[in-house]
């Protein structure tokens, strides 16, 4: 008859959660591989002359220099070999030399990452707080004036060019009103706190430097505000949808029938049920924030990935731009992986899908 059943597998059946985690890990590793293929291809295969770009116009006109560069970088070898070299280099932290700073891109980026992560984390917290509040309000008052108002406001949030908002708010709050601190992460008179996490707010607290902490926090306000506008719009709309779905659910009706209302019903029933779908959007919001930093940080002279990307892009420093692309791609993949893991742990149905 047919083939023997597949039940003859020797190893014991795994729990669905482990299976889900392994599958998800596999996808992420494949995508990570894909991300490196993309950056490799863009850096090496696109029309244009990467050698001239890497050496500069002057050096590229000298055949001996070009030959030496080709030898050194292994550019005369077949593409798969070149790609293998590229991957090997990445594992050793070699992302090329920045044309702008003349430093290894990897060490430049290592310095920039904490500054950006600090902004992005704070922005995600702010966006979630405001987004959940506005979105829930709109859902509770569905169809009323406040719902319409929230809808228009969130649409406006999604329409603001962040780089312009950064410029305008910096101009207004710093140059005109003088209530915001100036550019950078700290006022020039303050030394940075002893590095532990790379987040100035956390590090200054750890070192017990209150003045530095408040100053660092004050410097974070404006960039975080500007960056959050788009994600607040995004999250508000999404929260509204999720809360609306939950509000009609039987268990919420049961809670109401039991006599629950107000905060108990909202936090214990509604938000708890709506939080899972909201979680899925957080990964995407984080990607939007990372994109936003590229357009915002330069205005505030914030020494993070975004400023680095801006400066590399405007000075056409291809290794620098590729480095940012790679690092942000990896960070984004990691975040989405973490979000999916959390989702799989929290919602048993996902594991079986």
């Amino acid at each position, binding site marked *: 008859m047919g083939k023997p059943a597949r039940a003859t597998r020797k190893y014991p059946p795994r729990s669905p959660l482990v299976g889900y985690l392994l599958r998800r890990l596999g996808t992420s590793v494949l*995508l990570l591989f*894909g*991300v490196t293929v*993309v*950056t490799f291809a*863009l*850096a090496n295969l*696109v*029309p*244009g002359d990467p050698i001239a770009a890497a050496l500069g116009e002057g050096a590229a006109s000298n055949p001996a220099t070009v030959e030496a560069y080709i030898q050194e970088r292994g550019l005369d070898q077949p593409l798969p070999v070149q790609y293998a070299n590229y991957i090997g280099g990445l594992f050793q932290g070699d992302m090329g030399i920045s044309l702008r700073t003349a430093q290894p891109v990897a060490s430049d980026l290592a310095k920039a990452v904490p500054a950006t992560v600090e902004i992005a984390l704070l922005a995600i917290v702010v966006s979630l707080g405001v987004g959940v509040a506005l979105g829930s309000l709109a859902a509770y008052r569905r169809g009323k004036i406040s719902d319409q108002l929230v*809808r*228009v406001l969130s*649409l*406006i949030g*999604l*329409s*603001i*060019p962040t*780089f*312009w*908002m950064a*410029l*305008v708010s*910096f*101009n207004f709050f710093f*140059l005109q009103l003088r209530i915001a601190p100036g550019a950078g992460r700290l006022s020039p008179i303050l030394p940075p706190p002893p590095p532990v996490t790379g987040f100035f707010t956390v590090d200054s607290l750890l070192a017990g430097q209150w003045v530095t902490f408040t100053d660092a926090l004050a410097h974070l306000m404006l960039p975080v505000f500007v960056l959050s506008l788009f994600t607040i719009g*995004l999250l508000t*709309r*999404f929260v*509204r*949808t999720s809360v*609306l779905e939950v509000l009609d659910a039987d268990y919420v009706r049961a809670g109401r029938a039991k006599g629950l209302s107000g905060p108990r019903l909202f936090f214990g029933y509604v938000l708890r049920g709506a939080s899972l779908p909201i979680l*899925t*959007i957080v*990964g*995407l919001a984080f*990607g*939007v924030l*990372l*994109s*936003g930093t*590229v*357009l915002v940080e*330069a*205005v505030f002279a914030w020494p993070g990935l975004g400023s680095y*990307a*801006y400066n*590399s*892009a*405007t000075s*056409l420093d*291809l290794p620098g*731009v*590729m480095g*940012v*692309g790679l690092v*942000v*791609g990896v960070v*984004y*993949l990691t975040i989405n992986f973490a979000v999916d893991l959390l989702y799989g742990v929290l919602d048993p149905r996902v594991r079986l899908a």
Partner: protein
Amino acid sequence: MRKRWLRIPAAWITPLGVIGAIIAVAWVGIAFTARLWIPVDPLSQDLPRLQAPGIDTLMGTDALGRDVFSRLMAGAGVTIPLALTLVLMSLVVGTLIGAIAGYFGKWVDELLMRLTDLVMAFPTVILAMVVAAALGPSLFNAVIAAFVVSWPQYARMTRSIVLGLRTQNYVMAGRLMGFSPFKTLRVDIAPNVVGPILVLASLDVGTAILLLTGLSFLGLGAQPPTPEWGSMISAAIQNFDSWWIGLFPGLAILTVVMAFNFVGDSLRDIFDPTSQVSRAAARS
């Protein structure tokens, strides 16, 4: 039969949609006619430099003595047609790829969807920036880069709709009648795709404008002296005190993006009254 197309159903007329449509039409009108009526040549540098807005110069002049108002209006003619072209390109290519993936399934689907996964593994602005930098800075390359990041959402959405319809009885009936795959897609499936794709496209015009002006802000799009909104704002960073250089181009971007978002959001209510799921959710 023809009359049906001319009458707009009453349910379509919402304040949000109407306001959006009026502003959007006005901007598109400016985009295509600005060259004919702007007061000053947007490239001429004959005016006094960094002049504040006043009677002679409505929005002031920039650091090179160019009229900001004329550059702003001419800038609409640069960004808006490009954004519309970009959306049309992404729509056609994305929808075709999505339909092919969804209808033929198997390895074709697998291959095409892994391609969309790869694009979506990056935040959009980051990937567009990387592609634009690799191709070299120019407005044309910026459009190519924006296209690379924007077609997958159309492919994803079309695919999911096609997948859902493929096994429906009426589609099967058509196939049993001897419809070729492309006739099936055109006659039985396409009408169901039009609504959602139209909503996506109208919202995408706003995204496209933000992306293109953002790339120009980074110096990877329009090159000087082209009057382009993103690069005008970028130039304003060098002249912080002259607030008018950056303020007005930003307001232009904001209003035009907002207008298309209003229209798109109202269209969604029409085509899909039950759900207000954000397009971000459709993407993830």
